[in-house]
């Protein structure tokens, strides 16, 4: 059985690093809908993929978080990106693969992926 003993070494290492991570107001928020509708439609792997990629690619100033029902249940999984300028982009019918594209083009490239949004999907 793996024990919690290793955590002490991890904590010691983290204490030696200064200011590597902070959440402030001036950051992009990526919000995944995690109510019954979102979870049933596959939001869990979308949330995990977004979070893992932001971490792997060391994208600064981006916080990945969850929320409840956004109110467009038929279009779940839904991801909302709140930019630093306050602008909101709503992505619908999300998958882990689409999450990779959004990370590359929107979170890193700075340009919303129009074809994954409500307006861009032709609805």
């Amino acid at each position, binding site marked *: *059985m*793996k024990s*919690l003993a290793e*955590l002490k070494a991890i904590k010691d290492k983290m204490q030696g690093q200064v200011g590597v*991570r902070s959440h402030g107001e001036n950051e992009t928020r990526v919000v995944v809908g*995690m109510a019954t509708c979102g979870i049933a439609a596959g939001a869990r*792997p979308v*949330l995990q993929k977004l*979070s893992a990629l932001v971490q792997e690619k060391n994208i600064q100033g981006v916080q990945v978080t969850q929320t409840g029902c956004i*109110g467009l249940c038929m279009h779940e999984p839904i991801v909302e990106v709140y930019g630093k300028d306050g602008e909101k982009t709503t992505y619908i019918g999300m998958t882990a693969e689409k999450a990779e594209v959004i990370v590359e083009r929107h979170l890193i490239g700075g340009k919303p992926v129009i074809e994954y949004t409500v307006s861009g999907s032709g609805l």
Partner: protein
Amino acid sequence: MTELSLNILDVAQNSIKAEAKLVELFVLIDTAKDILTIEINDDGCGMPADILEKVADPFFTTRDTRNVGLGVPFFKEAAESTGGSFSITSETGKGTRVKATFTLSHIDRMPLGDINSTVETLVFYNTHLDFHYKYHLDGEEFSLDTREIKELLEGQPIDAPEVKEFISGYLAENSNEINKTQTF
């Protein structure tokens, strides 16, 4: 829902919304008795009797974004369709307890699925809460208690990349050791 771990993630969201400080999640499997038991307990705001009465009604919800509430009804149905049972008890100001039992070998029982992902999602995205997860299979068990982890971390964040990696490894390694080659 395609797996019970998703039902659990969904029902646990109610505990989070109820402003619980501690959420307990117990998954207990007894292959000899052919029973899978899932318990989700919280110390949140609880519900008065009139709300509790309606909580398993799919056309009842307290939210205003839509007029159905399917989390609890789905979970109840998932349990009862296997010949199992479902109960929910609650007390205003004290918290809520949800308990579902499933006939393990029943053809209609959904797989437990990726329960570790559910625990990770709860722990990593609700860092202001504490979770106590216990997985028990035929006399062997392991648990993950964020109160213990936070104490060991001495103020370092539980959602830091290196801590997340450790917790994911802890869940994977310990569940593999208990499950051996079995999947539920």
